[in-house]
């Protein structure tokens, strides 16, 4: 799916500056770089703000800095290192992982609807997590390690299993993207109906807990969840950047990619695995946060005025969106709502605005 160009561009091609390092050539594009820097600035501001004022505990910026370097009293240390820091880090890492996963999936399939939600990852993870919530909740038998790690582990297992099933079923001498998407959507619908059905059978309190998880929530953020997300991002972000050239070639179509020297099937499988793992880890840490994986890449490519979502900017945008939404979620109501409510409420109008604005530009 590509947008047909509005009108032919003026003929004279712009000379692009480039950086050459041995065999590597990097194009110098000013606008995407500026956008990335701006989004990064927003991310930093949101992160600092999260550390400064996430809850009612009175801590000035001087106190926070003092506590960060190890000079705070026990209350301040607890608030900063047990409550605020893990939550902010989880939001930032999970948002980045979802944004990156969405960007890879959308580029690979050339379909703006492709995201962990449509490829079966999210709903597979949901089946695992909801099974733990509902089975564990109604028997009242879970405690200790299982209640702390049961939901994330269940989500991880469910997500990985269902994605493997989707890949296996979609494979027929290669992963053709339409087939992959259709199998993914079928798996998602299968799993989502299973979840909804299970939720209609339980007590309403458990259904409410399940709904909170399904919306994506930072309530349970702790260091146990930061660790895997940080590790996954640390390994998979460089890998995906290394594969970015192949990804860009694949968006031109399989034949062109082959002509450019890309091993098409291998590259596609590798990129899909990267995206799926990122999504699995993110969803297991905080639940399927609504809309981030779909919106971050689309907003990023519109801000940068590129044809395909830029990977790093998508990750940064996902991160900033999730952090900002989590602060609104924590601060706006007396009953704190899950972050997923606000990623959609923040992200959707902005994406709509970008769609409308682009039309205006065409109009001129």
């Amino acid at each position: 799916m590509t947008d047909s160009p509005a009108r032919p561009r003026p003929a004279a091609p712009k000379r692009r500056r480039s950086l050459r390092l041995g065999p590597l050539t990097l194009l110098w594009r000013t606008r995407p770089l500026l956008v990335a820097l701006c989004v990064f600035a927003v991310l930093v501001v949101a992160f600092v703000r999260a550390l400064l004022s996430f809850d009612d505990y009175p801590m000035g910026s001087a106190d926070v800095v003092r506590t960060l370097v190890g000079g705070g009293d026990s209350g301040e240390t607890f608030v900063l290192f047990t409550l605020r820091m893990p939550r902010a880090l989880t939001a930032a890492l999970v948002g980045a992982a979802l944004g990156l996963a969405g960007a890879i999936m959308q580029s690979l399939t050339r379909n703006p609807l492709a995201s962990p939600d449509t490829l079966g990852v999210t709903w597979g993870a949901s089946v695992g997590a909801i099974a733990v919530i509902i089975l564990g909740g109604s028997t009242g038998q879970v405690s200790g390690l299982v209640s702390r790690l049961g939901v994330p582990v269940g989500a991880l297992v469910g997500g990985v299993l269902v994605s493997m099933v989707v890949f296996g079923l979609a494979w027929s001498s290669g992963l053709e993207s339409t087939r992959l998407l259709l199998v993914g959507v079928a798996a998602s619908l299968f799993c989502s109906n299973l979840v909804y059905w299970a939720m209609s059978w339980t007590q309403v309190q458990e259904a409410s807990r399940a709904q909170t998880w399904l919306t994506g929530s930072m309530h349970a953020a702790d260091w146990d969840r930061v660790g895997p997300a940080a590790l996954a991002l640390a390994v998979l972000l460089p890998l995906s950047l290394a594969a970015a050239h192949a990804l860009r070639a694949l968006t031109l179509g399989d034949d062109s990619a082959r002509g450019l020297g890309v091993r098409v099937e291998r590259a596609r499988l590798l990129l899909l695995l990267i995206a799926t793992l990122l999504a699995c880890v993110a969803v297991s840490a905080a639940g399927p946060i609504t809309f981030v994986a779909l919106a971050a890449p689309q907003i990023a490519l519109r801000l940068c005025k590129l044809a395909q979502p830029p990977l790093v900017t998508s990750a940064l945008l996902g991160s900033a969106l999730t952090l900002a939404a989590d602060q609104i979620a924590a601060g706006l109501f007396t009953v704190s709502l899950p972050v997923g409510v606000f990623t959609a409420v923040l992200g959707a109008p902005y994406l709509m605005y970008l769609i409308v604005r682009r039309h205006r530009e065409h109009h001129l």
Partner: protein
Amino acid sequence: MTEAGASSLRRPRGPVSLLGRRRRAAGLLLLIALLSAAATLSISVGARAIPPPEAWRVLFSPDGGEASVIVRELRLPRTLLGALVGLALGVAGVLMQSHTRNPIADPSLLGVSQGAACAVVVSVFTLGVTTLSGYVWFAIAGALLSSIVVFALASGGSRGPTPVTLVLAGAAMTALLTGIISGIVLLDERSLEVFRFWRIGSLAGRPTDVLWQVLPFLLAGGVLAVANAPGMNILALGDDVATALGQRIRRVRATGVLAIALLTGAAVAAAGPIGFVGLMTPHLARAIIGPDHRWIVPYAALLGAAIVLFADVVGRVFAGSGEVEVGVVLAMVGAPVFVALIRSRRLVSL
């Protein structure tokens, strides 16, 4: 592209093409037979099984007995509703996939289902509406409103809505409404209590009023969809070619979106968001009949109706004492069938 579709495109006009048309019409008759079988099963299977001959007899000459009451007052309305919902979702799925040129688009994509769901949740939360026929008006209003907003957002510029802007505006609207719904049902337990049952999608316990409430919307949507079919054939060539051929793209898209909103809104209002049929039926119909929308639309209508009725019957048979909702059955049985279909043939690209 299926063999039949490809070969009939290559053939010149004349007696040979007439043969193709005859074969397609015969297929249509076959589907009508299938739908009748599904309807017969639907009025005879249930907690009290009534043999099909007796069911037919009491249907046309009521004798006031128990079987007669069950068939005429419970199973007939339910069967009609199921058939209409399936028909609407099948046709709306075809329109949606063609207008967005996206194989994974389903009728709920323009925010139609979530608009209906959001309106239902809001009506429970603010007005305390509790009856199914009370939700219907809210659901239809919500569905129409959200799809109008999506269409307006997607068609801001001189070129009108493109497939990409339609998809994205729809996805954004869906996410926004999902967020609002989640917020409300988490703040208000009573809304969650209603919503968690409503969203599964079921034909059970719908009073006959619901059928009459949604029927005008379904009819209007159906007429628009049939009128839209030739236009969709030309739009399938791409916006530029369609413009060059003198097609008014904006008008065709607007007609299509209105038809989708009416059909899906009415179906969702009556039975809740039944997910799978709108995605699967268009692919099934295209696999059988090829790329001509004038044929895909009626095929998808009959297939959708038959699929929903069969799923409803399966849900009644396999659940033992209670029943499994039709939405769940469709996903559990439909997903494997759909995957098998995808694997077995080359896909028709949109």
